[in-house]
């Protein structure tokens, strides 16, 4: 079931939360230059973007969003502007990396090409039904271990690839505060499939996915009241990742986690204390969100991501809506997203 993904089938979506993308793009040039870039400007950002030459790219800003979204209630500010890029793309696959990330080095010192690795992850099968103790059986030098049922060795399509981060790991604000000096220096040389029904927090910092199949399930749904521009001031990707995992499981597709790594810039941990006041809300919400998603069972009639998202939105409203108004907004946003997707998004290349 391994297939070949062509460069022309991929868009790289960059969310510009800061105006100067020059050093970021120049650093990534060896890995990005073959691809078309969708650069989405945070609608709250007023300065013009600075983009170096040599990239085949398209910029989308607030006015594009207003034109495309006329009347839609979805808020694309901050990190949520990624989703506009996912929506507007016409390609089958998306790869997205945050603008505060640099290329990482592997254990041999070589620079890691995360785009190539995400593509590899997406074009080789996932194995969600049984855990392979040697991790990805489709990579060089590995295979299925003794005891792995043969009928499950074809695997299923991988439609989401979640990468990791060296240096500044994607911790929440309380953890940042408790461990201000901890840096992730451990390069774990593995990709693995996240098993069916196992839920996980998807970090939006470094991902690749099949937009045609999964796009509608990556929803800009959950906005914190005090959401900010730092990743630890948001949970929108955590929410959309859990939606996506439930949808993947239901559709019989796979999610991988592990390689590739990117190297994330240091930030002033002092900010984390301020953020804690905002993100504390998110930390509390997770206590309700996780059991909810763990309990979601989708009807057999839901055969596309759109169907699934609409069904989940109904369940969110019913089971979480009374707990916090933020969930009602999320349900509304999910339904609006599906409508938008049908109107504006393309499901064919």
């Amino acid at each position, binding site marked *: 079931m391994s297939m070949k993904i062509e460069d022309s089938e991929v868009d790289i979506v960059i969310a510009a939360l800061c105006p100067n993308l020059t050093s970021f793009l120049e650093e990534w040039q060896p890995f990005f230059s073959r691809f078309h870039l969708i650069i989405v400007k945070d609608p709250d950002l007023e300065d013009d973007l600075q983009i170096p030459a040599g990239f085949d790219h398209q910029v989308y800003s607030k006015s594009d969003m207003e034109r495309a979204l006329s009347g839609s209630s979805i808020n694309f500010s901050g990190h949520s502007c990624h989703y506009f890029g996912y929506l507007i793309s016409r390609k089958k696959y998306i790869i997205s990396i945050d603008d505060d990330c640099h290329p990482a080095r592997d*254990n041999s010192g070589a620079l890691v090409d995360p785009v190539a690795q995400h593509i590899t992850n997406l074009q080789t099968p996932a194995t969600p*039904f*049984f*855990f*392979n*103790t*040697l*991790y990805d059986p489709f990579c060089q*030098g*590995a*295979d*299925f*271990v*003794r*005891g*792995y*049922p*043969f*009928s*499950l060795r074809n695997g299923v399509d991988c439609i989401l690839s*979640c990468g*990791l981060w060296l240096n500044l*790991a*994607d*911790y*929440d604000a309380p*953890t940042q505060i408790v*461990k201000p000096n*901890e*840096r*992730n220096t*451990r390069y*774990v*040389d*593995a990709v693995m499939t*996240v*098993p*069916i*029904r*196992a*839920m*996980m*927090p*998807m*970090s939006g910092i470094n991902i690749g996915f099949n937009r045609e199949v999964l796009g509608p399930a990556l929803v800009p749904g959950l906005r914190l009241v005090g959401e900010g521009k730092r*990743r630890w001031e948001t*949970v929108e990707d*955590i929410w959309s*990742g859990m939606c996506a995992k439930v949808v993947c499981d239901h559709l019989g597709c796979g999610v991988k*986690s592990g390689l590739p790594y990117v190297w994330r810039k240091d930030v002033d941990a002092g900010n984390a204390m301020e953020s804690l006041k905002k993100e504390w809300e998110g*930390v*509390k919400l*997770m*206590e*309700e969100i*996780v*059991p909810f998603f*763990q*309990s979601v069972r989708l009807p057999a009639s839901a055969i596309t991501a759109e169907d699934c998202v609409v069904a989940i939105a109904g369940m969110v409203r019913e089971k979480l809506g009374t*707990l916090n108004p933020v969930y009602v907004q999320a349900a509304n946003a999910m339904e609006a997203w599906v409508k938008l997707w049908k109107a504006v998004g393309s499901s064919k290349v």
Partner: protein
Amino acid sequence: MVGSLAMASRSPSSSVPMAPLLKDELDIVIPTIRNLDFLEMWRPFFQPYHLIIVQDGDPSKIIKVPEGFDYELYNRNDINRILGPKASCISFKDSACRCFGYMISKKKYIYTIDDDCFVAKDPSGKEINALEQHIKNLLCPSTPFFFNTLYDPYRDGADFVRGYPFSLREGAPTAVSHGLWLNIPDYDAPTQLVKPLERNTRYVDAVLTVPKGTLFPMCGMNLAFDRELIGAAMYFGLMGDGQPIGRYDDMWAGWCMKVICDHLGLGVKTGLPYIWHSKASNPFVNLKKEYKGIYWQEELIPFFQTATLPKECTTVQKCYLELAKQVKAKLGKVDEYFNKLADAMVTWIEAWDELNPSENAATAIAGKPNGIAKAK
């Protein structure tokens, strides 16, 4: 308990060498039919611990244990003498006989290793103390209820990632630590035939919890577990002489164990430590042993994936006996072997309870049976 153990495993800057952890609480169980020369290489790491040698095959052969090790050795005559008619559940001419060692041990923890497994080196060239890593794995909680993308959050330099609910960060007690192998990978016979030269050279620097509800192939080559928490479920089945199947002993134990761990809210880890697996067994011999297993497992996997245990099963023994009933009811029709195996599973529990009487009372595991985060 977790706090002090976290400290024990996080004191790398101390210049005083730590006493071997769990020296008097752990037995190393080694099945052997040939010799124990491999122990020489393990001496620096194993010598402080007590060994239980289970000698398979001809009981009249003398197995020489290298000098300086503290051990007890059981051959087939001993097994027959100690268990009487119940010895029928212990395999003969197969390393599955090792589970006799689990049953006879009086310690809280077991580490089992094959006699063709040697000390591996990590990427920096340092020799890996596999036993020490297993102990760390067992003494730190697992996280079966939600997947942590940075793997084991209790390791130095790692933690729970953003989005991981705080109510799940205490984790669950770790029942099993499943280690891996460099060099000769643990492939089945067909894969060995197709890729005779493939060697596992990838050192994956991770320990992770196998999520609740997920099954995996458990290899018995490099395995540690908490005997008090899960020992009664670690029966390695009927293999070898007189049996239609081999090389599925650890697989069988692993599937039973995982269903029970999931039911009781216990965790299973896999990953580090690595050992160096030196011997490639003959793939044609393996094929003969495995071939029934290869097509039987297509029925076994759905059986285990859908197996549920009633709430009343609050101890490992009760869970295991219930599983044995279900094996007989649902797998008996796959092959008569499974009726025999189901009976042997019951015999195993009877023998276990006889040899481990004090554990009958309170092996009920306190804690959440399903571990879903509770909304505050």
